[in-house]
């Protein structure tokens, strides 16, 4: 990797002061499970790294009246093991558990999971975020078995890698972003964006901002995440579905259904959400919702199977949520 300066501030204020207005010069380092790979592959060549793991304010999970606050530097393992989180957000626990290998969950942080870069193999092999050669995308006619089946009219065809993203969106979470000049809260579903060119990012975070915490409103939902992966060991989900149901008795008052690993951003399946309102979750309703969620899918040459997988993930997530086993 390219040589870099290293800073390890102890407050958000100090850290924010070190960030720059342009991507690429100063990078944030949390658990490093993605950042270091990016640097080794020279996909990131910062001249300075700002370690945020020494910032106390970024740690901790607390439950207040308004809801839950999860510090950005909380590790995936801490998140999964937290008793309150386990009780209220089985969806989040399942999403974190799915990040395979205990080593990655021990090092990787919640903030890092939301800000990680896509795993698209064209990107990771040096063909740019959008995977192009001579100005033309390599993906629609190339090896796209793991790529997007929704929101894929271009130029982005990769899938958002975050498994926590869909779960947090379904739970109505917000993220807090802090820069030297102030702070803002962004709804989780607005945090993920589809880049339109090589120089933009797949998240709304600005280069001079730090993600400091995640806020989840305290609302009783039946929630679950269901992912499909081929292997038990060290593998990425092929698709995931996170659902959160506000119930009125045994029927759904309102539903959030968000798919992961199917589009350049987590994908809110509004057709499925509408279909579910007012219904009780049965096998056939869940199946219908799965179909509705994928009604507008536009698979590429090699990934039609993901449409089927995503339907099944929605169905199984709904059944898991309804039965209380996430």
């Amino acid at each position, binding site marked *: 990797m390219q040589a870099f300066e290293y800073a390890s501030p102890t407050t958000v204020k100090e850290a924010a002061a070190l960030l720059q207005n342009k991507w690429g010069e100063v990078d944030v380092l949390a658990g490093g499970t993605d950042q270091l790979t990016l640097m080794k592959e020279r996909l990131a060549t910062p001249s300075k790294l700002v370690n945020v793991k020494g910032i106390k304010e970024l740690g901790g999970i607390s439950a207040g009246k308004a809801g839950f606050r999860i510090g950005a530097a909380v590790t995936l393992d801490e998140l999964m093991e937290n008793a309150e989180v386990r009780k209220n957000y089985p969806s989040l626990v399942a999403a974190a558990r799915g990040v395979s290998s205990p080593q990655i969950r021990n090092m990787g942080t919640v903030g890092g999971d939301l800000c990680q870069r896509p*795993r698209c193999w064209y990107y990771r092999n040096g063909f740019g975020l959008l995977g192009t050669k001579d100005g033309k995308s390599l993906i629609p006619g190339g090896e796209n078995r793991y790529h997007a089946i929704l929101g894929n009219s271009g130029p982005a065809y990769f899938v958002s890698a975050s498994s926590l993203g869909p779960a947090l969106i379904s739970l109505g979470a917000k993220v807090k972003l802090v820069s030297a000049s102030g702070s803002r809260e962004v709804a989780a579903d607005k945090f993920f964006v589809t880049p339109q060119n090589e120089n933009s990012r797949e998240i709304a975070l600005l280069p001079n901002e730090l993600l400091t915490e995640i806020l989840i409103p305290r609302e009783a939902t039946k929630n679950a995440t269901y992912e499909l992966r081929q292997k038990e060991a060290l593998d990425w989900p092929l698709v995931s579905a996170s659902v959160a149901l506000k119930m009125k008795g045994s029927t759904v008052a309102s539903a959030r259904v968000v798919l992961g690993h199917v589009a350049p951003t987590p994908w809110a399946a509004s057709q499925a959400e509408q279909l579910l309102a007012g219904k009780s979750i049965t096998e056939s309703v869940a199946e219908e919702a799965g179909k509705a969620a994928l009604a507008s899918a536009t698979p590429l040459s090699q990934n039609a199977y993901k449409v089927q997988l995503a339907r099944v993930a929605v169905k199984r997530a709904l059944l898991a949520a309804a039965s209380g086993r996430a």
Partner: protein
Amino acid sequence: MPNYSWPPMEKRRLMGKRLERLDGLAKSTGRAKYASDFNAPGMLFGEFLTCPHAHARVTSIDISEAEKLPGVTAVRIIAKPGTEIQWAGAELASVAATSEDIARDAVRKIKVGYEVLPHLVKEDDISKAGTRAKAAGETVTGDLEKAFQEADVTHEGNYGIPVITHCCLEPHGQVIEWKGKEINYRPSTQNVTGVGGDLAKSLQLPATDVHVKMDYIGGGFGSKFAADLWGVESAHLSKASGGKPVKMLLDRRTELTIAGVRPSAFAKIKVSAKKDGTLTGWQSDSWATGGFGGGGSPPLPYVFINIPNQKKNHSAISTNTGGVRAWRAPNHQQATYLTCCALEDLAAKLKMDPVELFAKNADFTARPEVYRSQLKKASELMDWGKKWHQRGDSGTGPIKRGLGLAIATWGGGGHNSQCRAVIHPDGAIDIELCSQDLGTGTRTIITQVAAETLGLPMSAINLKIGDNSLPPSGPSGGSTTVGGVSSSTRKATINALEKLYEAVAASLGAKQEELEAVDGRIQVKGQPDKALTWKAACQKLGVKVISEMGQNDQKNPGGLNAQGVGGINMADVEVDTETGIVKMKKFVAVNDCGLVVNPKLAESQIHGGVIMGICSALTEERILDAVTGRVLNADMEFYKLSGIGDIGEIVAYMDISPEHDKRGIVGLGEPSAIAIPAAIANAVANAIGVRVPRIPLTPDRVLAALEGRNA
């Protein structure tokens, strides 16, 4: 000549016992040092610049900026202007520097001009290969047309198995020091005896100048026999850097791109049979690639070699991809996949249990009785009779269970191995041979044989391997090590014992040929009261040291080792038909391999082979991009290998019996790794009622096959 034959089965104290591997603790605690662990003061790091294009001509190469970088000690051009590069990842230049990072920075400063040329990297569709496909020509036996016409049933199918890599956990490479006349070479190799000479040849030096040492290796599987360009370049870099040691290990991307592949194999197959399942005809049009040199022709039909009427053709396709190397049982995994899938499909068409079909046709194999008994044993261990159902007849729920089977054969035999047994006057024993333990347990086995022969405990043996100053012993390939080293060790230890008998016979008042070595004593045969302890016996040597050689006679192994083994594998799988995800439930592997020196190690070999086969069946595949010509998954993230949770239960059964035992020792590394993907693919077909023609059996392929059925 002394009698070298193995002690009778019932008399063995150590051979045939389930002993722990001697280096298990060293390996699991990290005390075992691999080439990649070796460090020396002042050591430098070597790196390659590799080609990003699958086919190109180098038009210019400028190393001046790299040479100027502080910390860089040597830069060498490998591909001079004009060189035509035939695959991405090919080596263009090498660098040595005081740190790995500096070496990598230097590589980035080398400027190369290319004329990019058209490439072909995919071979799965032979119609797109054009002139890059070379057909070997048809071979015909019998009258196939007639056989097909007269058959009660025929089946036609297309099958394919992709290129995969060896994926050794320890990448290829070495630490090398070229100082003055001497070269100290610490490679990761399957060939300690020969690799020094291979390096010397490239460097135009006498082989005697190269000293090779290797204690442990992190996987080879057939890909680590030669010194390779990385050995040669590291030597030059060391010399150019004043003789400092240079460590160069391929990074994972390069490892998976250029350090060897197993060829693919695709085929269009037609088979015919009578109503009772007797096979009457075989036709195959197969093709494969093993890289630019083509390569990889699976022997078809596999094992059932004597099917009466046959017509075969095979095309080798040259692609612009990293080249082939032997991969655990070269061509056999492919051959059994193509053959057993076609036979299972035929059985399904006949509504016949494939076990029956295989047994019925066992006469077309070289070892009918062995296969019949193995089919029986495997069926019993799998509970096949109870669990097997007609294809697709697996209930109404989305989760389907199924069973499949496949067959294997391999040669084995013993490689050329020499061993020296040294008995010191204080009773200490050196057993010396330049072999290597690939993780298969070679150390343990040699020690068992030596201790058994000398009538001593394992701990009495001081074993020296992994150093080319020791007596030469062959490369570990073709499952020939155990046969070779056991035989040479047996002979050397018996020869040494004879010398010891000679020295002590007089004091025991007996003739040399009346003595035996038992339980730590040299005694008159059957008379423990007429004995000397081992130590007392050795003291009689005075100042004389016994040093005796033993050599495996490859032409006439004298019953110590043999060739030719078989195996039957059965898989039990579960398929989620909603998702196409296949899970392993149980795997049964029945293998014979003659005299089994250590059943525990043998089973461990089988476990390794089965796990490797499960990866190949379910997830493993090298993925190339047609446009850029690059390997897209040259990493451990998308080059997918199974983990513990993906394996299921493995039942390894060694077919140990007096008939097999009397053949002598036969290797097992390869036969244990052959039939797994075929058995799993057949189990999936049995479960879901339709053939998934190409492996790995990923959800997309399984779902596509299911959709085809529903269409």
